[in-house]
């Protein structure tokens, strides 16, 4: 499903952040990358999601293949179209948008019917979020906002999830789900 081959990433032309990283991820698999701060975990996510240009970085060498297609230098719009969703580190939501608006933004590719159905599903799963669906997300508790960032696929059938840092902030009730 996702394969990374001998990937090299530099920032600003001189800072080598990844030097020959390879990784295979099959259907139904979950892979955790562990490493100390500065090891390059986030850089790998940015490279796979096509976000490096936003960080003054670029892929110097190597390949990324997604669902069997070459995806090394694709832009993020095309990459998410192939079914990969990157969940960035830090604040997981748009804080000035309400939960409903966050879901609309995340589901921007969906038809109105799909969006409505998806939203109902999310709110059925997270009743606390439903109660506060019209409040700015910046005022939600950390646990609630993390739930909702996880809750939503950005493409009709996301097949690949990718977290830049693990969802430790989830409340215990979430893990039971």
């Amino acid at each position, binding site marked *: 499903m996702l394969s990374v081959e001998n990937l090299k990433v530099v920032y600003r032309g001189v800072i080598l952040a990844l030097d020959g990283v390879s990784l295979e991820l099959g259907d139904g698999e979950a892979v955790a990358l562990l490493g100390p701060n500065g090891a390059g975990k986030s850089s790998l996510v940015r490279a796979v*999601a*096509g*976000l490096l240009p*936003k*960080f*003054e970085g670029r892929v110097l060498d190597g390949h990324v293949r997604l669902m069997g297609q070459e995806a090394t230098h694709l832009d*993020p*719009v095309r*990459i*998410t*179209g192939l079914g990969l*969703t*990157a*969940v*960035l580190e830090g*604040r997981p939501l*748009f*804080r*000035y*948008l309400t939960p409903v*608006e*966050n879901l*609309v*933004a*995340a589901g*921007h*590719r969906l038809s109105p019917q799909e969006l409505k159905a998806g939203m109902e599903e999310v709110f059925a799963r997270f009743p606390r979020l439903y109660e506060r669906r019209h409040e*700015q997300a*910046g*005022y939600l508790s*950390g646990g609630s906002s993390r739930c909702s960032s996880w809750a939503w696929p*950005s*493409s009709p059938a996301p097949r690949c999830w990718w977290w830049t840092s693990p969802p430790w902030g989830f409340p215990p009730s979430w893990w039971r789900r």
Partner: protein
Amino acid sequence: MADFLPYLIGGLANGALYGLLALGFVLVYRATSVVNFAIGEFLLVGAYLTYTFALFLPLPLAILAALPLAFLFGLLVERGFVRPLLGRNVVAVIMATIGLAAALDGAVQLIWGPDLKYLSGSLPNLGFQAGEVFVSSRAVWNLLLALPLGLGLLWLLRRSRYGILVRAISEREVAALALGIPTARILAGVWGVSALLATLAGALLAVASGVGHNLVFFGLKVFPVAILGGLDSVGGALLAGFLLGALEALSQRYLEPLLPGFTEALPFVVVLLVLLVRPYGLLGERQIERV
């Protein structure tokens, strides 16, 4: 007091144009964090486009024809000047818009010459007498076009899918990109809308007082208006436009005899007061802080 209403109405008519211009300016600032110092030139170019179309079209059609062209002009500016510089130093982008302003000033003079021009044709006369007060056709047209357009855009920004995406991008562009939102296309659209609003304001100004380089000074009013409303508040911009228009007109009537020249300075005095009392403007939002 007999003068109060006529002056107020004239002020609101001006304010409607301030509001339109500031709305586009703030929309661009919020979405791309670019302070567009060429906004006065957007208005100027729009006025001249209208003038040119009015040479061979009836005036209402000329305005309608200028609007899509202005939108295109906004897209081009975004493509050529802004996008290559986004993510750079804020000062670099600001300098680029100042340079753009100078270039546009020059281009306009080259193409249309330096002398004041008047539009051929006019808009249908909608002026009417309401009791004691005469409401001028200019006031009716300005309010009739600016209010629904401004409020409609606010509604779109609040409620429509496109508006939600604009707000998502303006909060955190990388996150929007990670979700696959086509940020480049949407931001270009925002610049287009800003140019379109400036052009409508320019056209309505041109109808009232002709087309010349001094229109740029009208454009400069956008800064006090935007700060008064709150730089990040699109609704505030519209409101502040009307407010400043009204204040200016009333100052012209009641303060000018006592303090000659004060009206010129009024917008900046208001801004100074606002910055002291409410640094985030009338409707600006305070940042959400989570510690």
